[in-house]
C-alpha cells in the first residue's frame, strides 16, 4: 500500500498546475505553459497508474495513514485508470487547441488554470473510493465547468449557463441527500465498506436500498444526461467557445456514466428490476437524442444531441448487469467501457473539427457555410474520421464499440433495445451525412461570409490535436484487440468487487472496528 501514492498523481498534477497558474494571475502565457505541463503530467501519471494496475491489480491509498473506513480512500481499478488516461488525452488535446482558439479576454480570467481544476476534479471523481468525496469532486469539476461555460459573458452563453448551473445544482442536492441517507442507514461512506454493508441491509430492507438507488440514479442521470433528464445539455453545450464545448462534451457526461457504473456495480448489491429499467432508459435516450439531432441545423447543436443519444449505448451496456448470465454481464460492461473510451475521443474531436470548420467557413449554421471540401480537403478528411467513427463505419473505433454493445444486447436478449440501437445508429449516419453535404460538399452559398484567412501557425495548432485524436480513432479501429481486452478485464474486475474491497483493506478494519461502537448503532 506504500506504493499507492501513484493513485493520487493524476489528481495532484493538474491541481498543482492550477495553483501555480493562479499565482501567475497577470501572465496568461505562463498559465498556458503550465496548462500544457499539467495536462501532460496528468496523462503521464495516468499511464503510469494504468501500468501499475495492470501489473498488480487494484491500487489504493489512505490519506492521513488512517486505516480504511476512517482514512480518506483513493483507489484505482482498471476502469478508473483507463478513464484517467482518457482524461489526460482529452485534457492535453483541448489545452493545445485552446492556445489558438481562446481569445485574450478569456485567458486574462484564468481560462487555463480553470481547465486544470476541471481535469483535477474529473480525475478525482474517477479515483476516489469514498462516496462523500465523489460528491466533493463533482462539485470541484462543476464549479470549474460553470465558470468555463459562463466566461466571456455572451448573451447565448448566459441563458445556457443558467440552465446548466440550475439543473446541475439540483442534481448535486439530490446526490448529497442520497449520501446523507446512505450514511444514516449504513454508518459508512467508504464505497468498499458500503458494498459490504448495503448487501446486508438489502436482505432485511430491500425497499430502502432500492429507494436509495433511485435517488442516486436521478442524481447521476441528470449529470449523464439520460432520458428524460437530458434537456439541460442541448440547451447549454453549444454556447461556449468550441474548446470548452469539446472538454465538457468529451468528459463531463461520462463522469456521470462512470458514477452510475461504479455505484451499481460496487456500492449497491444486485437489485431486482434495475436491468429492465435501465434498458428502457437506454432505448429512450438513444431514440430521443438522435431525433433531436435530426431536427437541428447548427453543427454544435447536432453534436450536442448526439452526446445524449450515445449515452444511451453506454447505459445499455451497463443495463446488462441485470442479466442472469455472467457472460452477458461481463460482455455488457466491457462494451460499456469500450464505448465510453471511444466516445470521449471521438466526440471531443468532432467538436474540435467543427470549430475549425466554423473558423474557415464563418458560421456554425449549416445554411450559411459550404464548399469546405474544395477549400480545405485536409479538414474534410479530419471531419470524416470522427464522423464515420461516431456513425459506426468500419474499420473505425465506433464500429467495434457499437458491435460490442449490440452483440452483448443480443446475447442478453434485449431485442427492443438492440432495435433502438440499430435505428439510432442509422439516424446518426443521417446526421453526419447532413453535416457533410451541407458544410463540406455543397457550394458555398452567396450569403456565406468567410472570415479573413487565419494564420498558418494558428491553423496548425488547431489541427494538431484533432489529428492526434483522429489517429487514435483509426488506431483503435484497425487494432481493437488490446483496448477490448482492457475493457474486458475492467469489466471482470467490476463484477468481482471483492478485489476492490480487499485492496482498500476495509474488510479487516471493519471487523476490528465493529467492537468499538462506532456511530452508536
Amino acid at each position, binding site marked *: 500500500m506504500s506504493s499507492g501514492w501513484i493513485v493520487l498523481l493524476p489528481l495532484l498534477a493538474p491541481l498543482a498546475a492550477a495553483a501555480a497558474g493562479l499565482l501567475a494571475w497577470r501572465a496568461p502565457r505562463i498559465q498556458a505553459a503550465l496548462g500544457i505541463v499539467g495536462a501532460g503530467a496528468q496523462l503521464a501519471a495516468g499511464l503510469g497508474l494504468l501500468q501499475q494496475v495492470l501489473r498488480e491489480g487494484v491500487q489504493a491509498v489512505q490519506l492521513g495513514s488512517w486505516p480504511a473506513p476512517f482514512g480518506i480512500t483513493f483507489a484505482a481499478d482498471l476502469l478508473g485508470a483507463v478513464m484517467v488516461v482518457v482524461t489526460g488525452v482529452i485534457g492535453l488535446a483541448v489545452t493545445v487547441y485552446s492556445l489558438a482558439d481562446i481569445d485574450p479576454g478569456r485567458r486574462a480570467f484564468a481560462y487555463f488554470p480553470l481547465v486544470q481544476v476541471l481535469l483535477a476534479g474529473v480525475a478525482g471523481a474517477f479515483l476516489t473510493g469514498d462516496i*462523500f468525496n465523489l*460528491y*466533493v469532486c463533482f*462539485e470541484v469539476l*462543476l*464549479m470549474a465547468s*460553470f*465558470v468555463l461555460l*459562463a466566461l466571456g*459573458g*455572451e*448573451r*447565448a452563453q*448566459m*441563458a*445556457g*449557463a*443558467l*440552465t446548466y*448551473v*440550475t439543473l446541475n*445544482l*439540483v442534481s*448535486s*442536492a*439530490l446526490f*448529497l*441527500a442520497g*449520501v*446523507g*441517507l446512505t*450514511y*444514516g*442507514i449504513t*454508518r459508512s*461512506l467508504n464505497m468498499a465498506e458500503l458494498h459490504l454493508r448495503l448487501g446486508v441491509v438489502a436482505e432485511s430492507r430491500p425497499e430502502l436500498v432500492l429507494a436509495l438507488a433511485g435517488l442516486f440514479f436521478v442524481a447521476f442521470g441528470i449529470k449523464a444526461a439520460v432520458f428524460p433528464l437530458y434537456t439541460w445539455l442541448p*440547451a447549454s453545450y453549444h*454556447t461556449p467557445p468550441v474548446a470548452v464545448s469539446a472538454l465538457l462534451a468529451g468528459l463531463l457526461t461520462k463522469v456521470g456514466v462512470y458514477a452510475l457504473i461504479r455505484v451499481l456495480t460496487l456500492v449497491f448489491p444486485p437489485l431486482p428490476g434495475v436491468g429492465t429499467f435501465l434498458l428502457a432508459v437506454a432505448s429512450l435516450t438513444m431514440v430521443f437524442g438522435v431525433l433531436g439531432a435530426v431536427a437541428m441545423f447548427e453543427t454544435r447543436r447536432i453534436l450536442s444531441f448526439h452526446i445524449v443519444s450515445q449515452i444511451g449505448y453506454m447505459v445499455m451496456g451497463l443495463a446488462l448487469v441485470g442479466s442472469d448470465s455472467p457472460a452477458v454481464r461481463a460482455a455488457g460492461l466491457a462494451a460499456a467501457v469500450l464505448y465510453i473510451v471511444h466516445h470521449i475521443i471521438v466526440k471531443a474531436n468532432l467538436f474540435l473539427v467543427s470549430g475549425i470548420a466554423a473558423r474557415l467557413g464563418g458560421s456554425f449554421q449549416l445554411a450559411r457555410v459550404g464548399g469546405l471540401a474544395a477549400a480545405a480537403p485536409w479538414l474534410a478528411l479530419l471531419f470524416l474520421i470522427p464522423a464515420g467513427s461516431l456513425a459506426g463505419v468500419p474499420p473505425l473505433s465506433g464500429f467495434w464499440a457499437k458491435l460490442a454493445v449490440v452483440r452483448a444486447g443480443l446475447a442478453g436478449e434485449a431485442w427492443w433495445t438492440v432495435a433502438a440501437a440499430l435505428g439510432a445508429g442509422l439516424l446518426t449516419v443521417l446526421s453526419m451525412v447532413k453535416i457533410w453535404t451541407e458544410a463540406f460538399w455543397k457550394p458555398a452559398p452567396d450569403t456565406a461570409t468567410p472570415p479573413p484567412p487565419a494564420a498558418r501557425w494558428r491553423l496548425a495548432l488547431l489541427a494538431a490535436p484533432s489529428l492526434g485524436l483522429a489517429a487514435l480513432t483509426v488506431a483503435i479501429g484497425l487494432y481493437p484487440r488490446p483496448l477490448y481486452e482492457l475493457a474486458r478485464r475492467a469489466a471482470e474486475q467490476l463484477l468481482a468487487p471483492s478485489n476492490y474491497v480487499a485492496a482498500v483493506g476495509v474488510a479487516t478494519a471493519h471487523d476490528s472496528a465493529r467492537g*468499538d*461502537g*462506532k*456511530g*452508536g*448503532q
Partner: protein
Amino acid sequence: MELLLAVVVGGLYASGLYLMLRRSLVKLLLGLVLLGHAANLLIFSAGGVVRGEAPLVAPGEITPPPGAADPLPQALILTAIVIGFAVVSFAAVLARRVFEVTGTDDPAAMENGS
C-alpha cells in the same frame, strides 16, 4: 424531534422546488438555497438525532463513551455548507450578469435570445 425535522425537511424541499418552478431569477436562486438547506437538514436527521454526550475519548480509553453523538454527519454538513456557500455566491453573480445581458429576469424569455 425526528418527526418535526422530517416535516421541516419536506417543507423545505417543497418550497424550494416550487420557487424554482416560478419564472423569476431571484426565486430560482432562493429555491436553490432552500434545496441545499433541505439536503443539509436531511443529513442531520438521517445521522440520528440524539441528546448524547460529546464524542470525546476519555484518557486511557480508545473509544468514545457509549451513546455519544456521532460527529461525522455534522462534519459532512459543514463541508456541504461551505461548498453550498461558494456555489450559491457564483449562482447569484451569474443571475445578476444574466439579468444585465438579457434585460429580463424571466428564464423562459431568454431561451430564444441566441
